[in-house]
């Protein structure tokens, strides 16, 4: 069983005051990698390749993936600026995958930074493989995958898919493990397979970002000032005035 997991580095920078942007593994891709590791354990065999396109960030998440237990890393050196276009990224992954006869390709349902949900189903179409998106449970046998897809409003669809196929995974399907010490030592010695994006004949971009902006305020939020105590008192007063809180002392 040959499994390919597509992983992406996303900016760690979640704090408002952070100066330096660190990279970490896209959470949804961590679920995909964990699922591949669980599949390998349940089948008792299998080889897991991890692939990432990008520069230093991609290299660092590939190292983490090896530490978690992946067998081989494939690093496609691509400029991040090009990677806003998911078709570009999907084409690079498909260019590698079509040479390697994978039984199963896994990816996160979306990336946390761009939130496009495109790479997995695009890779599937480029390789003419069936694809199930938003997978929330999956069991693998040598013949195929029995899976559930999550729809809106708490609905779940059940499917059986043959191999090879592509799955994109929703959060909550498993609990991604931490890299082990022995895994990280192995990862430090491991040399990833490296390719330059330009050598893979990437397609021209199909879309670009014209400009960035921040969301408008939907409500005129009153920002409470002062010490935490003063803010709590202010909140209590507002809630009591609106009749939302039954306070003993008001």
């Amino acid at each position: 069983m040959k499994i390919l997991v597509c992983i992406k580095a996303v900016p760690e920078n979640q704090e408002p005051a952070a100066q330096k942007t660190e990279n970490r593994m896209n959470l949804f891709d961590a679920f995909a990698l964990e699922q591949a590791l669980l599949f390998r354990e349940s089948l008792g065999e299998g080889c897991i390749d991890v692939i990432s396109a990008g520069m230093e960030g991609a290299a660092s998440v590939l190292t983490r993936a090896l530490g978690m237990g992946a067998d081989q890393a494939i690093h496609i050196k691509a400029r991040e600026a090009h990677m806003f276009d998911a078709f570009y990224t999907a084409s690079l992954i498909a260019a590698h995958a079509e040479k390697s006869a994978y039984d199963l390709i896994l990816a996160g349902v979306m990336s946390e930074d761009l939130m496009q949900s495109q790479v997995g189903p695009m890779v599937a179409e480029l390789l003419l493989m069936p694809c199930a998106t938003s997978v929330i449970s999956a069991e693998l046998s040598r013949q195929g995958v029995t899976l559930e897809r999550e729809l809106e409003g708490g609905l779940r669809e059940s499917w059986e898919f043959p191999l090879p196929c592509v799955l994109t995974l929703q959060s909550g399907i498993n609990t991604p493990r931490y890299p082990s010490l022995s895994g990280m030592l192995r990862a430090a010695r491991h040399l990833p397979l490296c390719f330059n994006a330009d050598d893979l004949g990437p397609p021209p971009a199909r879309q670009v970002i014209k400009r960035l902006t921040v969301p408008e305020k939907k409500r005129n939020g009153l920002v409470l000032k002062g010490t935490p105590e003063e803010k709590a008192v202010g909140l209590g007063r507002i809630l009591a005035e609106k009749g939302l809180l039954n306070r003993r002392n008001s």
Partner: protein
Amino acid sequence: MNKKIYVIAQHDGKGISPITHELLAFAGKVATLQSLCVELVLVGNTLFSLASDLADKGIVVNLLDVADDNRIYKQALGAFFGRHEFAWICTAHTAQGMDFSPGLAVKLAAAHVSGVKDVEAENGALNFLRAMENGKKLAWVSPLTQRVVLSIQPGAFKPQKLDISTEGALTVHHIKNLPVTAGDVSSDSCKAWKKIRFKGVKKTPSDMKGLSQASVVLAVGNGIGSQENLDIVYKLARLFHKCAVGGSRIVCDSGLLSHGRQVGITGAVVAPSLYMACGISGAFQHLAGMDQSEFVVSINRDPTAPMMNMADVCIVEDLNTFLPICLAILSGEKNGNGIE
């Protein structure tokens, strides 16, 4: 050339889903900007009466007479658009729509813009607004291809009353030689398609009733951090009448709350008198589940969290510090060191 904008209807086999009306509203906006005609595409062989009702309401409807089957959506639409020139195709940015939409774009050599929230015209071309980084940033995106597939964010466009002055029409299209239906296609990939089996739909157990009937919802997000903080939120909940505790997806996934307590598109949609968000950054999927709340309080150490844009009262504090103080003061145990 008479270019068109096509809307792919989302339906449940009986009627079209509300999102389809939002897609038509969006398509109408684009049609006005570029003088295009809007047409609806319905996929399914049991939808003839639904399609003719829609045509009677003034919509130009294309009915693709193939089995209503997720496996062949992409193929059937690919075959249809191989013969019908289009400028734009609009799909729903939902689990159903996004299962086929990006692959359809690849099949048609079109760009795919995901999660469109708005549209603007610039020098004759169109730019589309979409959210990034959990809703903290928005990007205006410009497609570079002649033909484009757009998935439209649910809730972004208000459904409009249909303009019944236009002339509706219904055309039924028979699509032949699809991999899963054609008997004579025998390549390996077609055999694989035939092996895909649909096993049904089920509803996951949830506690939506408790949440949707509550007049106060205290909601916790990733910022809640620990069980101790969650226990304080439960104590806070006792200070309110008809109060329920809910949470964001990430908290439910982590196991701190059951999945039945999830607020958002994939969980419960709530509209209480008070929604107090504790450590919830406010992904679009979550905001869509609570944005009708009457009064919103957001407590978060990050002042740029999207939830702050939705809030009537914003408190920038770390929950570890603020929650115990807030409980003490709101419960009246402490009067705020003489501040009042």
